[in-house]
């Protein structure tokens, strides 16, 4: 059976930790990290595998740090 899987890649160095993507994600895939990036911001990161590649987080990200992938994956 084919299933739609999504994934996000976050450019953590550019993330400013505004948390707008957290509110936009329908599956709570994103959470804020405990550590900080070189600018001192807590960055967004992916915490589970529920992503469907809906692009909501990437659309609202003011700094455009999120790249979204989506593919059909064959599962048994």
């Amino acid at each position: 059976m084919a299933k739609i899987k999504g994934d996000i890649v976050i450019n953590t160095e550019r993330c400013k930790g505004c948390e707008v993507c957290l509110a936009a994600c329908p599956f709570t895939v994103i959470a804020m990290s405990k550590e900080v990036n070189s600018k001192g911001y807590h960055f967004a990161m992916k915490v589970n595998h529920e992503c469907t590649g809906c692009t909501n987080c990437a659309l609202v990200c003011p700094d455009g740090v999120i790249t979204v992938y989506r593919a059909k994956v064959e599962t048994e």
Partner: protein
Amino acid sequence: MEEQFAKTEIHKPENIVYKKSDLMVDRPLSYCPGCGHGTAHRMLMEVIEEMDISDKTIGVSPVGCSVLAYDFLNIDMLGAAHGRAPALATAIKRMWPNHFVFTYQGDGDLAAIGTAETIHACNRGENITIIFINNGIYGMTGGQMAPTTLPGMRSSTSPYGRDVPTMGHPLKITELIAQLPGVYYVTRQAVHTPNNVRKTKKAIRKAFELQKENKGLCFIEIVSNCNSGWKMTPVQSNKWMEENMFPFYVLGDIKVDGKLIEMTK
């Protein structure tokens, strides 16, 4: 293990469904975390990329937070004096009628200092696109009261809230210019939720398509947050904007195809 396999399957260039537009210069935006400017920039550049008009688009950035737009947008940009972007855009459009010209202005610039230029450019029906970011405050200079500040809203020059008898009413400049016959398309959008971002992109696309057809001036207001100026977190400020700004600045089309849309309120 299964997830590892899935990742290598998914992470291929052909599977990318969304990434930052190539027309955005690859450098960190100078805006505050959570500011709507970044999203508005990105939508604008996506439209220009999709229409493949990057080599014949000229943007005019005025004074305010948006003055730095020329650092981030990889197209031809000009800086105008405070509030004079529509006047400069008029000149550019008349010199190069086949080029796409847009201005990208904030509320202090467009609705206060550049009111005369804005209204006259709109009244002449110049064939340009004006993108107006309304956050109800002078963001760059430290959160002073702007003409668009809501009644009772606190800013650094109205610390007890905007008092209408002494400080006047907020200015709905978008409704004001929608009355002018030279204006063809007027809309008000926002960029705080995915749905609104998509609508904003559609509106910008429509404005550029209309500019191609020489229909007249297109005016897009984007109600945005200024979390630093409002002294809130980005998520709080988006919520505050929904609760307080949207009842006053109602989202939606105001003028389509040169005809005013009847407002229910």
